[in-house]
């Protein structure tokens, strides 16, 4: 008994007991204050939706557990990285933040719907952007510019004469890598492949008869245009949505430029020790 009493009076024992209590208490408090990683129902729905969008079926139970585990791991690593300041001085993080800020200003700059009159005025100013290229259907016979002694032009001329007499082209031409018959082809595309002089002929030749010889970068051709659609101004109604998008994009661009301008006023920019004004 007396031994127990003596132990109870021993200051070292008091010290250890109080220490143990404090330690236990603090640990309990600390564990209460452990930061929480919490995924709520909305997060889970979103994870499931992402997965389903990619795989075209809902995840199985095991797959769902895997997705959630991965999401938690990602959150833990990201939190720890932030705690250690790993986001500082990181080019990719900086770019992403800048991008988010730009998106945010885009949203803020969402202007009110333009009025019909505004759109029509804008269309009047930019109508040539929406014009449809002319289109043409034609047949051709090709005589390669590599034929010796200008033989291609002569052969093409003879073929044309025969075609004019007989009403159809005889197969005296050379092999050609491009189509020998085009159906409703865009003059813009033909310009790239055949050059301006050739396309001019396609634009102006009378329909339904063999014409030529026409020079192209490849040699001489005789051509018969079978149908043609002129470059046409497009009606406002057909491109209303595009005009609206262009108008909004222009507004957004202006708003973003203004925002950057205002930022330059709020910050002082110093490059290599030299202040920018």
């Amino acid at each position, binding site marked *: 008994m007396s031994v127990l009493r003596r132990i109870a009076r021993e200051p070292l024992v008091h010290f250890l007991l109080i220490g143990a209590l404090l330690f236990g208490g603090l640990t309990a408090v600390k564990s209460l204050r452990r930061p929480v990683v919490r995924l709520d129902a909305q997060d889970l729905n979103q994870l499931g939706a992402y997965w389903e969008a990619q795989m075209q079926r809902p995840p199985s139970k095991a797959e769902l557990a895997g997705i959630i585990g991965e999401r938690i791991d990602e959150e833990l690593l990201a939190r720890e990285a932030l705690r250690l300041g790993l986001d500082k001085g990181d080019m990719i993080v900086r770019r992403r933040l800048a991008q988010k800020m730009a998106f945010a200003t885009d949203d803020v700059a969402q202007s009110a719907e333009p009025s019909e009159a505004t759109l029509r005025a804008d269309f009047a100013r930019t109508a040539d952007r929406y014009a449809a290229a002319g289109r043409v259907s034609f047949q051709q016979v090709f005589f390669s510019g590599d034929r010796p002694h200008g033989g291609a032009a002569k052969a093409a001329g003879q073929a044309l004469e025969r075609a004019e007499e007989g009403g159809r082209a005889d197969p005296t031409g050379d*092999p050609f*890598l491009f189509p020998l018959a085009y159906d409703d082809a865009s003059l813009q595309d033909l310009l790239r492949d055949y050059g301006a002089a050739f396309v001019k002929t396609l634009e102006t030749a009378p329909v339904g008869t063999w014409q030529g010889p026409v020079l192209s*970068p490849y040699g001489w051709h005789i051509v018969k245009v079978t149908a043609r659609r002129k470059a046409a101004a497009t009606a406002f109604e057909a491109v209303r949505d595009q005009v609206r998008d262009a108008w909004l994009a222009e507004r957004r661009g202006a708003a973003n430029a203004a925002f950057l301008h205002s930022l330059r006023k709020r910050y002082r920019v110093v490059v290599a020790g030299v202040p920018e004004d």
Partner: protein
Amino acid sequence: MLSIPHNSNGSDGLMFEPTRRDGSPMDRAYAELRMRNEPLVEITQIKGTSEVHPSLSPNDEWANFEIMERYIGGSQSVTKFHGSYVREALKDGILMREKVGFNPFKMGFIGSSDTHNAAPGSVEERNYFSKVGRSDGLPEQRGSTPPKGAKTWPDDTPDSAHALTPYQAWGASGLAGVWAEENSREAIFAALRRKETFATSGPRIRVRFFASYDYPDDLAHRTDLVHEAYAKGVPMGGDLAPSKGPSSKGRAPKFLIWGVRDPNSGYLQRAQVVKGWVENGAAREQVFDVACSDKLALNRTTWRCPDNGAGVNMATCEPDRFKGDVELRTLWTDPTFKPGQRAFYYLRVLENPSCRWSTWDALRNGTPPNPTLAKTIVERAWSSPIWYEPRA
């Protein structure tokens, strides 16, 4: 899904190393996986051309084309060319097929620009306007006009290996061509899958390449040649099986060669077939000229066309007139063909020389071209290979 590896020239031998990345040997499953995922390779782009390095193919006079010998995004020099260039990889591939039974490097070709400046293109020499925007957007930044607005070049102008930035060694390069039945996603993707693709260094040169034992000798002059070529043979990217049947057994394959110029670029000077094959346990290669421009006669001993003499006026960058052909078209039979030798063949079509972009920049600036850079280049197009597979 498929992915197209690029810039193997900057990989320092890693892209086509003969093992897996961890050093363990490849096996059939790995090779098949790789070919399923990566049936194509980029053979040319702004950061250099990856077909062939002069040190790997000393007998190819046109190998020294827009070579870039630096790491991508760094200034470190590339030291290992083997494993970095496509032709060598194709050779390693057929050798592996012969020795271990699978080929991880059976790739078709595409070209691309790889611009990062929100503008596609930048593949024309006379209209090259940078690859990455802010840092190479001006001629002076890319080393084509003298530093600090000077009118002449200092004596100590560094060459591309020592220049502060890599931009001067970059080339205005890279388009991909696809032979598809129609202009739709499905048709184009299917063509990529079957490697019916070609690459150019920028101009819209069109190339056709087919092989068969049964083509008629006048095929190249027939107007239905494409129809016949498909009906009786295989197109670029395909496999040619050994000949069968009494009429063609053991006969050499015939190749239909067809290249047509870009109307907005130069004329064509020659068409070549690059052959790689396995002989006595080693991979070999040869470049055959097969069609010459200007009616020049092909030397069938050296397999070279005579020089057509086309030049460029360096004061104006105007090419000589009346040199070169609109198209090169022929049927070629491989004179070295041996039925037992595994091989690949691809077509390369060369333009007449023309000013390099750096020369155009200098011309517009009224200053001499950078003395350390090539003043002219030979633009070109490459078809995907056709593989001759002697045994199944």
